[in-house]
């Protein structure tokens, strides 16, 4: 190995180590601030880390979860829910994330946002639903392929069963896809629900509490037309009061 090459490798390695150390350090500092009940400083550290990861097109559900915890301690439940929801997108079955999300929904009275059917659909993540669909796809088309070469009795049963499951998962997959690309958001702070996309005394209808989940129907200027899942009402809300989750 040439002298120049070894210097280059050393520089790259030291930079990489430094990056990893910086990340780890920010995470530790955030945790320490949190333990000292300095949630604002803790949040800043986790935000810094999250920003660093985002720049590198990366994300950490644990960092998002910790930001949510800081917001919760600051009693900003809208922001807390938003970050827990974001964290859930990348760690669907994480027990802590799900517990905190359930807890925030419970204390903000948003437990009946989704129907029982949607809750069942959401039992599996988008990726899991499509992996199951793929498996049944393989079983079904695999049995069709094998049938071309060998005639086996049990293949008929595999074909029928896998077709039933494949159709079920296809339906689930379509609904899941629809849910995944539906424009949804979380109300970050208490905000006026307006009857038109402008805020005057005549357009105010009701104050919406934070942490409510909304479906964004359309947008105009600085406002989103939203549908509140829990309260089943529609109206306009300022864009900066909603944290967008998907779509």
């Amino acid at each position, binding site marked *: 190995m040439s002298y120049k090459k070894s210097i280059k490798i050393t520089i790259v390695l030291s930079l990489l180590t430094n990056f990893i150390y910086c990340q780890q350090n920010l995470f530790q500092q955030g945790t320490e601030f949190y333990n000292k009940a300095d949630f604002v400083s803790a949040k800043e550290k986790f935000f810094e880390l999250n920003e660093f990861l985002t720049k590198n097109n990366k994300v950490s559900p644990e960092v998002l979860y910790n930001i949510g915890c800081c917001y919760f301690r600051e009693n900003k439940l809208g922001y807390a829910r938003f970050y827990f929801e974001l964290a859930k997108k990348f760690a669907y079955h994480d027990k802590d994330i799900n517990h905190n999300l359930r807890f925030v929904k419970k204390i903000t009275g948003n437990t009946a946002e989704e129907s029982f059917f949607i809750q069942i659909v959401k039992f599996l993540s988008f990726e899991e639903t499509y992996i199951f669909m793929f498996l049944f796809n393989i079983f079904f088309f695999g049995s069709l392929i094998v049938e071309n070469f060998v005639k086996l009795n049990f293949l008929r049963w595999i074909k029928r069963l896998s077709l039933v499951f494949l159709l079920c998962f296809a339906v689930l997959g379509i609904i899941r896809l629809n849910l995944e690309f539906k424009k949804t958001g979380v109300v970050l702070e208490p905000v006026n629900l307006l009857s038109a996309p402008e805020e005057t005394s*005549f357009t*105010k209808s009701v104050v919406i509490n934070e942490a409510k989940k909304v479906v964004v129907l359309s947008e105009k200027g600085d406002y989103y037309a939203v549908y509140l899942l829990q309260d089943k009402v529609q109206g306009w809300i300022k864009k900066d009061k909603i944290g967008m989750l998907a779509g």
Partner: protein
Amino acid sequence: MRTKIFIYFIVLLLATKNFAEISISASVDKNVISLDEYVTLQVVVSGETTNVPQPNVPQLQDFQIYSSGRSQSISIINGRVSTSVTFNYILSPRRVGEFEIPPISVEYKGKIYQTEPIKIKVEKSVPKQQNMPQQSIYSTKKRDIFVETTVDKRTAYVNEQITLTFRFYTRINLLSQPQYTPPDTAGFITEDLPPQRNYYTIIDGQRYYVSEIKTALFPVSVGKFVIGPATVRCTIEDFDIDDFFSDSFFRRFFSSGREVVLKSEPIEIKVLSLPEPQPELFSGNVGKYTISVSVDKQKIEQNESTFLNIKISGIGNIKSLTFSKSLIETFLGKNFVIYDPITSFDIKKENYVVKGSKTFKVPISVSSAGRFVIPEIKFIYFNPQTKQYETTSSTPIVLEVIPSTKYQIAKPVVSKQQQISLEDIRYLKTFYKVKSKNRSLGFYIALQFLPFICWIGVVGYKKYEEKKLKNYHKYRFTNAYKNVKRKLKNIYKSKNVIEELYNIISEYLADKMNITKEAVSTQEINKFFYGKIDTNVYNDLISLWDEINYYKFAPSKIDLNELNVIEQVRKITNVLQRLEYELQKKY
């Protein structure tokens, strides 16, 4: 060494003492007010305990004090509980002057903590300056546009709902969105009553478009109060609607309109005091309510806590409903250990009436085993409809307390802080993993087509094979030359060139004539090709075949080392190429 341990012990003791300390602070929203206004006093008591004591607010000669509820936040970090309770009071001044709210104190573990005194200056109530120029108040003979405010009652009891209705009437086009300024409601707690109504009405034969805004007012003290004028500022068309032929009608196309300010009349409200004598357990709640009591768990262990849920539902100022801890202690008796309640409320504003429920979640526990009855809990309120004090009661609940599996009865009872187990969020993540931000959703969707494509491929291949079998002769005939070219390319790798050349040519001819390789002979070639192709090509083919046969069957007569393979391959290619051309012409 012993001295060191002793010092550590002392430091530890001091630290524990620090943790147990609480703090108190008080603040007011304004220090200078007029006689008809009120001050909101906020007392915050916080500390690392769940059992934050109630502050002692001293009797104030110069103010009437009303409690307007409390809010509490509890946080548990690494098992350490810290609570912050905010007690809200409304102070209504009795006279003009400069007054001082003396220190508000709180007693905790024998130690008294107190706030700094707060100075408040009360000035004479001055009629509000009318900033709007008089001429700007728009009022025409025909009343094209006007506003009014009405109340459902002009006399009410303290904390009774008064519904203030503001209406904006117009029968002309507005050139701007009207700007509404609500009236001055000093002396009242206000609550918006959505939704705003819009409808048409006919007054004196004229059809008006009406926008209606309602507000609930709850008076905070006894006396006479004035609801100030509500104003609407808007721009209207600057022309006479009936004067069609005048210049002004045409001028409207070029006019930017005229701004007008509309004001409603002030309304005087008389607030009555609640009738005397007041019942013993009455705590100032006004409205119409029912009480329901439940427990989260009916079977608990000794010293284990459960929530006693006291839910007051009905019509009235839900936010300021009070149900003090001392009142709960009065009902429950000494068998129960009671902690500070956590309150939550759910307000509905159906039909422009403030209603809903307020829930007091009281953590309770019992130190001895057995069956305990939570007796009926009474809630006394003043009903302004019947003008009487009414009582609503809950049904008794039996609480079964089983001996503790965690604590031995002989041992001293653990502290209150340790007993309480409140639900909380989970602790921070102590490590983290990094993932790619892009979720490859498209990949998962595309994956679903893979088995289908495989199946289509297999079916297609099978069909192709079937087709091939059905027309095998044609297949052999068509592909014969292609096979020869392929095989001739690899001839140099072969160990037995003569054998390989013979096989290539005989296979080619067999494919063309649809016979087996072994059946190829000069006679068969003659039979198949003679007269069908050019004579020169035919002759060259026969001589090639003879030559190859000669090499194959009389190898001893030739020197293999002298055999030029390249030349032979070129020769074969040439003959077969021409033959192929001839056959293509024919077939």
